């Protein structure tokens, strides 16, 4: 069994490359209705100690990407192509036993709904202690103490007693704290938080986000933060990747993406957000149309059926014919020129945002 030290898990030039590097990832499912291309050519990097926010509608492939990182997809119905490198180690071809050693250890995950994500049949303490025992070889007693310690760390009052409780005896926020304790019990390098606050009410949401930030300070993990809530992402993330229909459409630092978005989809997202200081009468403008079917995705730019800026692109029907590529670093996958993007945002979008 591997140890939890970071050095041991990094045979490649350690600490130099990104913690997680995803290259040209394709994930598709076989369903009864046909093949669903859930992720279609996705690439991104995550550095240690940084937080990457992934935004997008349901079905845009955010969660699938991250389940694939952990190898939790069902191998019978799923095809994975491309590279996922964790500390330089290739995960798509890794053996199951190797993945098992990584999961909960180097890579941990926090799920959206802590009520369904925690087993109702076992105590919270046991569920936290389990991965610790497995990955560190600790005794039952040690693992239990560790679980109690972790519960204390995530702010559960009287952790000694509460560890013996079952998840249904916890409140929603406490459950999510327990979930976080479970994820961090082995000091993971990479923490994937899949909409960790969506199921919580707003006050608790803030507490959890604060907790996550504090813990990141303490443990130095890299975090992938998945959400469709732009407010949350602004608070949490260092970088943002916007996903649409299985691919990334815009990438950049949080500041850049939120202040000067360059993709019509991102504009749409921002547009559809209500604001406290806007006029009461001002209507929200949701993105027209519905998310595309990934069984039979639109040709060219996946967003073109819902995009209001197609005709400004040079070359008629280019959006329909040609899929725009996403350049590395700060970039957006759109056929509009950089100049157009900037002017359209400043002249047409920003005023509407107020």
């Amino acid at each position, binding site marked *: 069994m591997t140890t939890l030290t970071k050095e041991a898990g990094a045979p490649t030039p350690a600490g130099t490359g990104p913690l997680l590097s995803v290259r040209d990832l394709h994930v598709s*499912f076989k*369903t*009864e*209705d046909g093949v*669903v291309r*859930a992720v279609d050519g996705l690439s991104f990097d995550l550095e240690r100690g940084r937080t990457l926010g992934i*935004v*997008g*509608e*349901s*079905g*845009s*492939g*955010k*969660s*699938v990407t991250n389940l694939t990182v952990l190898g939790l997809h069902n191998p019978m119905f799923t095809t994975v192509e491309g590279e996922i490198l964790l500390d330089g180690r290739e995960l798509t071809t890794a053996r199951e036993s190797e993945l098992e050693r990584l999961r909960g250890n180097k890579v941990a995950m926090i799920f*959206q709904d802590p009520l369904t994500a925690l087993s109702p049949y076992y105590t919270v303490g046991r569920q936290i202690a389990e991965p610790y025992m497995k990955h560190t070889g600790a005794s039952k007693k040690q693992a239990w103490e560790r679980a109690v310690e972790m519960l204390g760390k995530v702010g559960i009052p009287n952790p000694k007693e509460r560890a013996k409780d079952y998840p249904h005896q916890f409140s929603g926020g406490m459950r999510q704290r327990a979930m976080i304790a479970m994820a961090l019990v082995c000091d993971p390098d990479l923490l994937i938080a899949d*909409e960790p606050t*969506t199921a919580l009410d*707003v*006050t608790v*949401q*803030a507490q959890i*986000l604060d907790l996550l930030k504090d813990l990141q300070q303490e443990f130095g993990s890299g975090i992938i933060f998945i959400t*469709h*809530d*732009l*407010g*949350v992402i*602004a*608070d949490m993330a260092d970088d943002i990747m916007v996903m649409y229909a299985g691919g990334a459409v815009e990438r950049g630092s949080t*500041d850049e993406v*939120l*202040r000067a978005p360059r993709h019509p989809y991102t504009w749409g*997202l921002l547009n*559809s*957000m*209500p*604001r*406290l*200081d806007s006029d009461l009468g001002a209507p929200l403008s949701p993105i027209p149309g*519905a*998310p*595309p*079917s*990934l*069984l*039979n995705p639109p040709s060219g730019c996946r967003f073109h059926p819902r995009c209001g800026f197609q005709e400004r692109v040079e070359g008629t029907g280019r959006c329909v014919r040609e899929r725009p590529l996403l350049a590395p670093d700060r970039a957006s996958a759109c056929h509009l020129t950089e100049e157009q993007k900037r002017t359209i945002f400043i002249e047409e979008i920003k005023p509407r*945002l*107020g």
Partner: protein
Amino acid sequence: MTSPIDIEGGGTSVVVDGEPGPEAKSEAVKLEGRSPGQLMWLRFKRDRTGVISAYVVGFFFLIALLAPLIAKLYGKNPYTVYADERPELFDSAGVPVHPNGGISSEFWFGLEPGNGYDVFTKLIYGIRTSLMISVAVTIAVVITGILLGVAAGYLGGRTDYFLGRVIDFLLAFPAQLFFIASMPVVVSLFVSPRDETPTYVRVVALIIVQWFLGWMGLGRILRGTALALREREFIEAARVSGASSWRIIRKEILPNVVTPLLVQATYLLPGFVTAEAGLSFLGVGIVEPTPDWGQMFSKASTELVMQNDITYMFFPGVSMIIFVVAFNLLGDSVRDAFDPKTAR
């Protein structure tokens, strides 16, 4: 105070899409522009097992429907006592003397030990009787399930409580024992013991008895569905807009329970077929000479058959296995077509 968004400042966080859910399971969304019924039909048509099963089941219903015609073409009927018509084919106890149950080019499925009925016509008429009864029970159960289940779920309160207790009570009945105990009673409700019991009386009695203890499962499911629907916004809206309960049930609830109803009915029917056969097997259902699937099993389990030539057994046995398997597969397919998420 939450999520201070630095760009615009002071905006509350927003949920981009209404209903968050696991992305992988959203195929339904992708077949946009089609009604649920069309979607179901499309999915069903793609399910080869389901389609084959549907053909097999259809074949059985066709046989049942056309039994008199088939028998006419074949030139025999299930009532001719060949043991007396053609005594040379039988011994004195009524066992066909030729091997394999007397199968020949003349009697395709052989002859029934005992009175020597023609097995082929007896089987197709038997399927006809059994299916007729089971379809009637299913229809009765579905109607009762809708009426009582939806009433309990939608009206709630005292009605719901009362119906719930009734269901509890009926579920505690030893069902089979109740069937055999009540069959003579129900038969006697229709005829005085002095008169002939026409076959249809036994048929009606079988339908009533099975219906009486058959509707609770469906009733519970529909109650659950109606209960859930009652809380939904569009029902709320209809209620606020002053629609009557009856109208809401008819226009809003019923269309929404069609799915579970169809799935359940597909599972119920083969159950009723086997239960009806069980009663006839025990001797309280359909009796000789009326052809019936279960009555054939009863005949097949006599020593006359078991001791001498078991060929006869296989005709009701194998045909029923095929029917039940096909119907169950069909049921699975219908369920999957409606609700592709369910694991199989």
